[in-house]
């Protein structure tokens, strides 16, 4: 009797642990988060009031939030540009390597396995100990101190550290894309007298479109939601020059006693990411040769 019941409900029982964990720690959390964004809770007090959309209205008028969005946008654009161009160049170079290709690839992949915190701390030291001597030798005023201490260069420096780590995976994805191009096409192109650039433009590139989409979306999303690098390297400063939205949410929630406001900020981030994910699904359904 019990055996029969178990057999008939095996599939259902298989779904139970996942449903419980996912509902409690994911779905419920999303709903509670949205709910908090309509309150005035500071995160500590025992009670709070519902205040409708006033957090959102306040954000709309808050220059700090606008600045943070702008910084995040700049961060994402620099990250995407750096990651896409470098990983494509590296993939083309690595893919045409005959000797030691596996070995070279495994060196290029090392940054991807180390934690962002350790990488940030190492680069922090490099910025402090290597850049100022160079600046003094070349007598460039801006480089007398770590670029992280300079409001004008801090964001760029943080992005460089992020790029240093983030290039590895897209490079390998591009290599996989390059290896999907049938070699006969290159032969045909060569016989027809196509130049190196034209062979890239008309043969390689169309085959790369799916991988370009994958890498682009990964880079955009990680740029917009980035936290670890800026938090470890600068904490958002100097003068909020690296105050990306991830840091603003964290600080508003846990330092500035604006817990409900931080939830409203993250709901706005949610909308941005949801739209991007939707575009990603649309794009990956058509594009490319595959």
């Amino acid at each position: 009797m019990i055996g029969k019941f178990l057999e008939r409900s095996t599939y259902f029982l298989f779904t139970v642990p996942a449903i419980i964990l996912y509902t409690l720690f994911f779905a419920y959390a999303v709903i509670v988060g949205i709910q908090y964004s309509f309150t005035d809770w500071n995160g500590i007090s025992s009670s709070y009031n519902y205040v409708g959309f006033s957090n959102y209205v306040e954000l709309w008028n808050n220059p700090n939030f606008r600045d943070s969005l702008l910084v995040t946008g700049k961060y994402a654009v620099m990250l995407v540009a750096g990651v896409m161009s470098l990983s494509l160049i590296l993939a083309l170079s690595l893919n045409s390597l005959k000797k030691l290709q596996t070995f070279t690839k495994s060196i290029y992949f090392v940054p991807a396995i180390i934690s962002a915190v350790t990488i940030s701390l190492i680069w922090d030291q490099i910025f402090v100990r290597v850049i100022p001597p160079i600046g003094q030798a070349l007598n460039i005023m801006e480089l007398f101190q770590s670029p992280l201490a300079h409001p004008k260069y801090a964001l760029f420096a943080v992005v460089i550290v992020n790029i240093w780590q983030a290039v590895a995976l897209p490079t390998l994805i591009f290599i996989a894309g390059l290896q999907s191009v049938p070699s006969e096409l290159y032969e045909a192109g060569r016989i027809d007298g196509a130049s190196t650039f034209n062979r890239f433009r008309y043969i390689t590139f169309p085959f790369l479109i799916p991988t370009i989409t994958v890498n682009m979306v990964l880079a955009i999303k990680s740029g917009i939601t980035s936290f670890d690098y800026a938090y470890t390297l600068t904490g958002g400063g100097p003068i909020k020059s690296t105050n990306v939205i991830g840091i603003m949410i964290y600080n508003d929630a846990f330092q500035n006693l604006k817990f409900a406001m931080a939830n409203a900020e993250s709901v706005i981030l949610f909308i941005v990411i949801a739209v991007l994910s939707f575009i990603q699904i649309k794009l990956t359904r058509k594009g490319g040769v595959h």
Partner: protein
Amino acid sequence: MNVSIRKEGLGWRILRNIILLIGIIIILGPMYLVIINSFKTLEEAGKGFFSFPKALNFSNYAELLSKGNYWRVVWNTALITVGSVFIVLVINPTVSYAIARNRHKKYYKFLYLYILLGLFVPFQVIMLPLTKIMTNMNLLNPFGLILLYGALSLTRGVFLLVNYIEGMPTEIEEAARIDGCSTFQIYYLVTLRLIMPMLVTLIIMDSLWFWNDFMLPLLILNKAKEFWTLPLFQYNFKTEYSFNYTMAFTSYLMAMLPIIVIYAAGQKYIIAGLTEGAIKG
């Protein structure tokens, strides 16, 4: 492909090798600085930051390891990683198998969409409510963190596994059923073995995430020093070692060492797993 490579021009080959060499210097340069300076005294590093140490000085290592919390921190990180991977392996393949074999039924179709909706949600949205939920449930500890990782692994895991299982032929499962196997036996004896390649990919992606993650441990474990993981330990000692920077380098090296050793042993699988997961995800 090989034919075309052999005909690559000399100019491109030189340019390519220069690019790759510069890249390797940029990647290994910081590593080199970390290693050499970790063996120097502060005085020696002050004289020459880039030069090779005159003698291998292990005092930084002795000091770091004698403090005792390094081992504690490595143990915590390993425990959390292994525990979370265990949960991932219990809940991901079971629910994916149930969904993949019952997609025509409303309940499973809905469940699939319900879990995939997680793809649209950035971590920031759930992180604030999660801190409150975890506090209320008394789960600000490694066990709570492991449960969270299990829950958060589902979106990617179910997406990858359902696709993989649906692409598999069902003949072997049907043969097993005719031979009198129960659904659970089929899952355990047949399916689980057939989806091994994708499970390995998942284990690699998730372990690296759990081992290196900073944000969730920061939210869940930061208040209790005895629960710190490697990234948290590193972050919190940032200020302590800011003056004694050769000591800081030693701690960076020791924080990287476990994962580098694992990488050296299984780099082929790690690289393949992460690439495969990223392309299919």
